């Protein structure tokens, strides 16, 4: 089962147009960009054909791992919680 299928089992309420995380890859080095693609449990960071970083906040499990990875790069990542009633709602946790 791939991670997209797993995420489809979760209860999400996506705040369209208001992602709670944004990333500016021009402020990141290659190692950190690689890190983002491997550490995210939801696999939301990926590299495009030309090596550019793609990110989609929908499906975020709100763990904060990407925030930790980018902590040494000021200004590269804006990370907050989704607005109330948005984001993941764990039914089991």
């Amino acid at each position, binding site marked *: 089962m791939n991670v997209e299928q797993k995420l489809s089992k979760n209860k999400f309420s996506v705040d369209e147009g208001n992602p709670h995380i944004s990333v500016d890859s021009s402020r990141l080095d290659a190692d950190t960009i690689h890190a983002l693609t491997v550490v995210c449990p*939801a*696999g939301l960071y990926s590299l495009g054909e030309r090596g550019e970083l793609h990110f989609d906040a929908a499906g975020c499990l*709100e763990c904060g791992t990407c925030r*930790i*990875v980018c902590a040494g790069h000021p200004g590269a990542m804006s990370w907050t919680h989704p607005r109330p009633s948005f984001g993941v*709602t*764990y039914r089991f946790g």
Partner: protein
Amino acid sequence: MSDYDVIVVGAGVAGATSAYCLAKGGLSVLLLDRGDAAGAKNVTGGRLYAHSLERVMPGFAGRAPVERRVTRETISLMTADSSVTIDFQKPGGMSDPASASYTVLRAEFDAWLAGEAEKAGCDLVCPAHVDRLLKDNGRIAGVVAGDDTLTADAVVLADGINSLLARQEGLKPELSAHAVAVGCKEIIELPERVINDRFNLAEGEGAARLFAGAPSGGLVGGGFLYTNKTSLSLGLVVTVEGLARSRTRLPDMFEAFKKHPAVAPLIEGGALLEYSAHLVPEGGLKTIPDLVSDNILIVGDAANLCLNLGYTVRGMDFAIASGQMAAETLIEAKNNGGDYSKGVLDGYWRRMEDSFVLKDMKTYKNAPEFIERPGTYNVYPELMDGIFSDLFTITGEPAVLARKKIWPRLRKAGMGGLAMDLLKGGNAI
């Protein structure tokens, strides 16, 4: 006059326990959580050591939505295709309330605990996202949540490991990738009877299983499995620093773990109900920040209270105790004239020092360094696989004594390193 004596930010087990104790102590309390309900944003690996909540609410397990009482503990060292397991089963043991542990699911459990706080007289509001702390002449005077400004004489920060508020206030430095692990978990549905049969459990009994070695691809980390009533909590935890340099994505590592021959039969036929993730503070004592400032206390994961010894993983029992001790300190402050300055609230730290929380963190202060020794994840699984493969394989070739089989294996693994690990381990865990 403030709206409340105390506002507690975050309705996890630390925050809800704190709010419960504060309300019981006669203080006016507001408990806020950003989830649609208490627990809706919270994740556990799966097991609560009951002692600390038992002290707050004697006999709680008889009323609370706990899943199963753990009666079986296993630890497995795994290579890609083998597994050597220590299996400890004692259904009659660990049964008195103070030494019992229970598997739990946080959405249900935290909602129950916050409900108990409400019954004790605390106000619970969710979803409410606290954007920042309210200041009055530089003094913390409440919280700002969206359009609402709520005043209080003191604030308990129980907003979890990411604690954006503690960072905003400069109360907590950023966790390094070295001192934090990321865990992901699947809830896998199986009939109660199947779980009982598969894990050799009687009704109400539970198993806690830990897996080291191959599951984390040799990185610092490991897999876990806890049995719930009608589901399994199967997860994988890996230190962020090591994972960041890995070629394998965490979701793919998790899938490989599920396909391991020692794991696949355990989850066979199960249906995925939920996929979750959470950070785990694993840096130990030296990463605990200053938990006290004027008009504010930090509890639970926000305070990095967690202890991973490899064979036990604890966080919630610390969180609950810290919530209780924060409440006791604030109740005392209120009853002594309402002075919530740092000098008074430092009583929280002293209580923690006198309790198992900081005593245990101190006892195991070397555990984080020991846990991350590479032997645990590569050398030992290979060593065990080699020894047991030799012992249990009969080919018809003339046999040799066990010591002649084991000795070369030990030498290959490195006797010096083994002796050092034994010595260091004895002083660390």
